């Protein structure tokens, strides 16, 4: 299986750069916008991997819903960030070492696995990743997990409402 288009390389570089931006930019609004860029480049990668419905969901759910909640919270907390900027972060650069270790171990494990991964030459159907095939799998093979996920979502919404409401005296 060959996946070597220049577009894919470009999107991957964009993804990693914006991901680094999320954790290095000090201003939370800039970090959120950098996160948005990484989400959009990930959606482009999904399109290249013939997962069009997942790509659409990525844009709608992540960029449309989750990031908007983030921006609301950031706007709510504007003065708190100024306090953080004043109280100059003690740099915890020590933790870069375990991060690098995790990365190396993961890369070694991947390399070990994929030396033995058989190269398949499956003919993908032309509409692979479309909403029709995905829905067929969702409602036939994954019906019970689907119901459970609905329940989780409902419970989390009720919990968020309960946690977030002001205490009434």
């Amino acid at each position, binding site marked *: *299986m*060959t*996946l070597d288009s220049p577009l*894919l390389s470009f999107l*991957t570089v964009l*993804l*990693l750069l914006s*991901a*680094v931006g*999320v*954790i290095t930019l000090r201003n*939370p609004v800039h*970090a*959120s916008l950098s*996160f948005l860029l*990484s*989400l959009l480049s*990930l959606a482009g990668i*999904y399109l290249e*991997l013939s*997962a069009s419905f*997942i790509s659409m*969901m990525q844009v709608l759910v*992540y960029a449309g819903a*989750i990031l908007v*909640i*983030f921006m609301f*919270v950031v706007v*709510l*907390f504007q003065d*708190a*960030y100024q*306090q*953080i900027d004043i109280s100059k972060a003690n740099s*915890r650069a020590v*933790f*870069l070492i375990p*991060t*690098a270790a*995790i*990365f190396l171990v993961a*890369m070694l494990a*991947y390399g070990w696995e*994929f030396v033995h991964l058989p190269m*398949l030459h499956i*003919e993908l159907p032309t509409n*692979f*990743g479309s909403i029709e095939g*995905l829905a067929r*799998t*969702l409602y036939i093979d*994954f019906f019970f*997990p689907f119901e459970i996920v609905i329940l*989780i979502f409902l419970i*989390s919404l009720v*919990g*968020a*409402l309960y*946690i*977030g409401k002001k205490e009434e005296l």
Partner: protein
Amino acid sequence: MDLLFFASTALFAIGICGILTGRNALIFFLSIEMMLNAANLLFVLFARHWGNYTGQMWVFFVLVVAAAEAAVGLAIVINLFRSRQRVDVDQFNRLRE
């Protein structure tokens, strides 16, 4: 394909790095979302590699769980900020007011 494995691992490592080195509670959430995205990327990659929909199905579930986690987590952060006027996680060191 190797490039995307590298990207997924690097994305996960960047997320861990953000959690370990950061102090801002909101950046923590962004880092967690980035780690979930790294897992999603591998799922989509393998769905294409094996030619079936199971991987993409799990991406769907991960998306829903991520949305639920953001809702609950941000509600907790709002409450913490309301009681402490801080979002710096190093200062949340008491369980009780």
